[in-house]
């Protein structure tokens, strides 16, 4: 990335770890007397948390550092995301976990489900049972119940009441955020894109915790800058570079080695399919239905995670991203021991190659850095196919 560029968020955290900015925001909320709720996954309906005037925060799960400690208790042959998050907890090194009053989990996989039992020794945790047959009518009914249960848990634990009006307001807040995020994503659809994935990540990280109203100013100034870049022809040297879409498991922290390998090989990342990327902003929640919990349930059940079966929603979501961002190749990032994404990769690869005619590369990795060269070889070869 060209470091001479003016940072999109020109505060004292520019160029630093973007999590520091998120932490500062959370701390400012705590100083105002707000309570914090820790989350691990995109299925947690943040609208209920916002509606209760609580602050949602994504907990640390992307560093290799605490894995060694976690492996004293957990099997080594488990996904690095779970090992890392548990390692952060037992080594007391995740400031977000320390600030959280409670944690909300979802049964997205067996590993997480069982680790939640262990996490409950450190913090109160409320686990939502996620239906896995998204197309079945039972799924929606059961998911509505789970969301109501969560509402009950929040109301009891924090001794408050969440009204439908509060939830409606939170839905409007989420929708506004989705709209603004999608405006930013438009700048990735350009050739060349005028926003680098690292810059996008700064915005995405902030978006996970911030209320839309606290972000409007930041969003507007970002869009103004991106518009100026577009008009002034930034990143011109990147015009015509191979455009890469990333799909699969969430990627952040030490797994970003894959994105960096794309940069080094001369590719540009134009779409991020995963939960750590554009997925939280893939669609809107219906407003003013009179039944806001049902509206939330419908929206969240549409999240195309590999834990769902069948997960055809992911193929439709990929269609959308391919049409919008025009990638030349797709890389599926699988975290070691994530069986559902790993198995689903075959279907996804077949679909991408046959239906869209795009080269597809699956990379299975973890948070260690010792496969960086092997990953570089694969990505260079993938981009060679395109040149």
């Amino acid at each position, binding site marked *: 990335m060209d470091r001479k560029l003016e940072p999109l968020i020109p505060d004292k955290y520019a160029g630093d770890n973007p999590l520091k900015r998120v932490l500062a925001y959370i701390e400012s909320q705590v100083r105002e007397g707000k309570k914090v709720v820790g989350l691990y996954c995109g299925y947690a309906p943040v609208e209920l948390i916002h509606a209760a005037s609580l602050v949602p925060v994504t907990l640390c799960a992307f560093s290799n550092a605490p894995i060694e400690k976690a492996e004293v208790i957990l099997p080594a042959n488990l996904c690095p995301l779970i090992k890392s998050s548990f390692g952060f907890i037992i080594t007391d090194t995740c400031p977000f976990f320390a600030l959280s009053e409670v944690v909300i989990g979802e049964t997205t996989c067996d590993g997480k489900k069982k680790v939640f039992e262990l996490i409950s020794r450190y913090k109160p945790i409320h686990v939502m049972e996620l239906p896995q047959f998204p197309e079945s009518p039972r799924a929606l009914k059961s998911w509505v119940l789970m969301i109501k249960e969560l509402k009950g848990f929040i109301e009891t634990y924090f001794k408050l009441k969440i009204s439908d009006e509060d939830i409606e307001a939170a839905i409007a807040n989420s929708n506004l955020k989705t709209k603004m995020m999608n405006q930013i994503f438009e700048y990735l659809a350009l050739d060349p894109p005028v926003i680098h994935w690292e810059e996008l990540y700064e915005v995405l990280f902030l978006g996970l915790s911030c209320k839309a109203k606290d972000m409007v100013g930041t969003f507007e100034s970002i869009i103004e800058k991106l518009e100026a870049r577009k008009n002034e022809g930034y990143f011109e040297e990147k015009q015509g570079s191979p455009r890469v879409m990333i799909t699969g498991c969430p990627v952040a922290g030490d797994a970003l080695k894959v994105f960096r390998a794309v940069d080094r090989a001369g590719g540009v990342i134009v779409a991020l399919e995963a939960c750590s990327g554009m997925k939280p902003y893939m669609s809107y929640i219906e407003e003013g239905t009179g039944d806001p919990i049902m509206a939330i349930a419908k929206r969240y059940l549409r999240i195309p995670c590999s834990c769902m079966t069948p997960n055809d929603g992911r193929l439709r979501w990929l269609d959308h991203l391919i049409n919008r961002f025009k990638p030349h190749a797709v890389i599926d990032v699988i975290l070691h021991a994530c069986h559902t994404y790993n198995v689903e990769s075959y279907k996804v690869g077949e679909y991408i190659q046959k239906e869209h005619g795009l*080269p597809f590369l699956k990379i*299975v990795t973890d948070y260690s850095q010792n*496969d960086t*060269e*092997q990953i570089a*070889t694969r990505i*260079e*070869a993938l981009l*060679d*196919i395109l040149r």
Partner: protein
Amino acid sequence: MKAAGLDVGSRTLKLVILNGNRIIWAAKSLSSFDQLGSVLNLLNGLEYDRITVTGYGRHLVSAHLGCSAISEIKAFAIGSKAIFPECGVVLDIGGQDTKVISLGEKNEIKKFEMNDKCAAGTGRFLEIMANALNYSLDEFAVAASSASKSEKINNMCTVFAESEVISLIAKGAKREEIALSIHEAIASRSVALLKRVELKGEILFAGGVALNRFLCNLIARELKRTVHVPADPQIVGAIGAAIHASGSEIFRVLWHDGKEVEVKAVHG
């Protein structure tokens, strides 16, 4: 113009210098912890106009030499076509990687597959297993070919396979039978990787592991297809890199005396 290609592999360094379409120099040495030192030794006193580096250590070496670098996949794709134009699929088993590359009609890379990040089924795996059975690499292949029956090795992780081998020894299995079992395990793994691409055109087996003729036979037998093996399967990537350095499209490469680079057919 003299164009050099250097393949900095995990176990072996390979160097080829082309003068026009003729190979005027081909040399190999073992990789060491001092990769740059080994490379400079190999290049010492040699003359060339341009050089391209490939292989595991390409980024380190190209940064030092100030030259271009290409992935092993591209290098093997170019090199294979240069010595064997009928080639449609390349199987390359090196020290730490197994790759399958399928090539299109315009010599382009259509698709490639690689093993997982561990050394399972690679040259390093063969070395460790030979060592566990107290064989040299040559003896290992000969012993395997002499065995009349084999045991199934289930675990292809190098570490676990080694303990599986040790338990087979403990059960009193014959050494050559274990050797055959290991060769069969590598062959079936390679065939599984090959089957992930469309097997159109002839198959070329390159990389250091192709020196093991018994394994070549096993792979051909399991595929029920002819597999072609270069007389020196290790230098294919270096030839590809040298062609890249020359800046030309792929051309047929010959030895300095005008002889073709020999490719043997192993029938399935």
